[in-house]
């Protein structure tokens, strides 16, 4: 089973996320993550969906997506060199004595501390999934109170379309 990252340009209409996610659900396609936001063009949104499946499944996903009237363009980003990023906020236990160690990890990962509480920190990390997984593993021994990840957003490198 291959992992694929698909970019879907859609009309920014109410219910469009439901149409897309519903299609995946009822046809038995997997969604590892889905992110949605505005695109470069007013009125259009871009969804980035990470899914798994063989080549036939990927082809069907693309064809079925194109059947939705609100879907304008579907691109298999992972067919070309691409940049994929996700963001995570990690609230980690941090008594004052433990903070220097944690800050050391944060600095190494080029992450950032975005909030400091009496005995906790919120760490913000941006990167590909592996980097975030690694960061989470390193912070786990200190006690992670809360973790929130966005799922990947992505685009192909350079001028490949």
């Amino acid at each position, binding site marked *: 089973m291959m992992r694929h990252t698909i970019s879907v340009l859609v009309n920014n209409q109410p*219910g469009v996320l*439901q149409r897309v996610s519903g299609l995946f659900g009822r046809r038995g396609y997997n969604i590892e993550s889905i992110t949605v936001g505005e695109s470069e063009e007013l009125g259009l949104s871009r969804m980035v969906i990470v899914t798994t499946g063989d080549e*036939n499944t990927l*082809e*069907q996903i693309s*064809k079925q997506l*194109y*059947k939705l*009237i609100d879907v304008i*363009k579907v691109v298999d980003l992972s067919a070309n060199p691409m940049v994929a990023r996700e963001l995570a906020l990690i609230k980690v236990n941090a008594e004052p004595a433990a903070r220097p160690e944690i800050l050391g990890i944060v600095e190494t990962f080029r992450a950032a501390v975005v909030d400091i509480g009496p005995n906790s920190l919120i760490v913000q990390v941006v990167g590909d999934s592996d980097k975030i997984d690694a960061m989470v593993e390193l912070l786990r021994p200190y006690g992670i109170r809360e973790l929130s990840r966005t799922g990947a957003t992505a685009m192909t490198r350079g001028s490949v379309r």
Partner: protein
Amino acid sequence: MNVETQQPKRSKEELMEKLRQPDHITGSEILLRSLLLEGVDCVFGYPGGAVLYIYDAMHGFSDFNHLLTRHEQGAIHAADGYARSTGKVGVCIATSGPGATNLVTGIATAYMDSVPLVVITGNVATNFIGTDAFQEADITGITMPITKHSYLVRDVNDLPRIIHEAFHIANSGRKGPVLIDIPKDVSAQKTIFEPVTGVSIRGYNPTVQPNKLQVDKLLKAIEEAERPVIIAGGGVVYADASEELIEFVNKTRIPITTTLLGLSGFPSAHELWLGMPGMHGTYAANTAIQNADLIISIGSRFDDRVTMRLDGFAPNVKKIAHIDVDPAEIGKNVKTDIPVVGDVKAVLEFANTKAKPAKSEAWIAQVQKNAAEFPLRYNDNNDELKPQFVIEMISETTGGEAIVTTDVGQHQMWAAQFYRFKNPRSLVTSGGLGTMGFGFPSAIGAQLGNPDKLVVSINGDGGVQMCAQELAICAINNIPVKVVIINNQVLGMVRQWQEIIYENRYSHIDLAGSPDFVKLAEAYGVKGLRATTKEEARKAWKEAMETPGPVVIDFVVPKGENVFPMVKAGDTISDMLMGDAE
């Protein structure tokens, strides 16, 4: 005096001219005007709270033809029958909540069979949406998987564009139902109405003309093929491509099998026609597919009722070509070597310009021998009235000129097997969803769309009871549908499966307690007839044909009859049970 008769009659041109004038009117009036401008001549519906402004706008508007059914399911199946038999878009209207949810089965039926419908539902006022208000249902959400597209109208100014787009989407590309949900306040708001012409929907550009290189590949494969077979489906009928298909078959000399939805798309009398393939297909059709070296699917989607077990489907095939307007169908179930995306009519028109025959004469002799040795047959030794006999009688007396609608079950398969089809759009049947209750109301729509044709609705005693209440609208509107009931007093297809697959363990199939169908018809003011022998059957059918209005004919048949050939679920189409023919 009826208000409607007070309006002076005007010509269609005068009416259209008036409707095109910009005017300050309500959303409801915009809807009615837009529907007329789209060429809609009959709407099926049922009023309720959320669509009262719409129904109020209809009051006294004699140019708008609305038929009040007795259940929303009747309305949408009627719209469906209208659409399938005419090629135009069927329209139905229902209120919010239960009215809208009663349409769900009909929407799914149309979606599975690619039937163009515009379904109008009312909804609670916009400020109540999402509050679980009285008779509120999220019908756009509920129907998302079973519509081609849907709209929830939030601004009355969008209404003209949305209606125009809905008709365009429903009736282009791969056709299908489009839902427009109109909140009550939107139907009441006034705005300046200017008719919309032209449509531009970014992201929706169905491919009509095929890639010519792909068609050339197909033609080359045909010339090389020794054992080619065409599987033609509903797409041929919907694209109005019957003539092109006949020309293609004559030029290429390829034996052809038509799926349930494709049956009327090719004349049964043609020498190269092998019958229907699949679960209840003919020996000749299934054997031809299993031995073919080239299969060409034309407007057919390799449904599991056709292919049965996929890993045993067409084991000798070297190439599969697939012509379909919906690219997502190509490669969905069966690996395709030559994909041709495009409108079936356009593809065949282009292919016919240079099609050459396959090397198929020996093959044709072989498949024709199979057809002669294993024809469809049934045990017709005694005077017992057999269901197949009834279908043959209808087929002969109508000369294949009637429009036949069927419900779902054994009678549907017998109609598919024993009725000889001649003209496209002369079979209206629920293929994909297999919807019981479809047969009779769809005939009402077919009759309204084809007032000069004979419409025969063939039903079982089970399915006819799912929408029998629509006899009322046949009676009061004198809609002359001939309602045939093949009455075997059981759920026949279920009984057949329980006999063959579940070892005679008959569970809850006895329809004892069904009404006396003659009296039921009479209770609605419709003529009712009954036949229990062949002679009575001929007499009753003759009387029905000679009766100008609607007639219900109850053909009482034995309950033990089965549909053969039959391929059991999980078997390949080589594994046909032949029944009496074995």
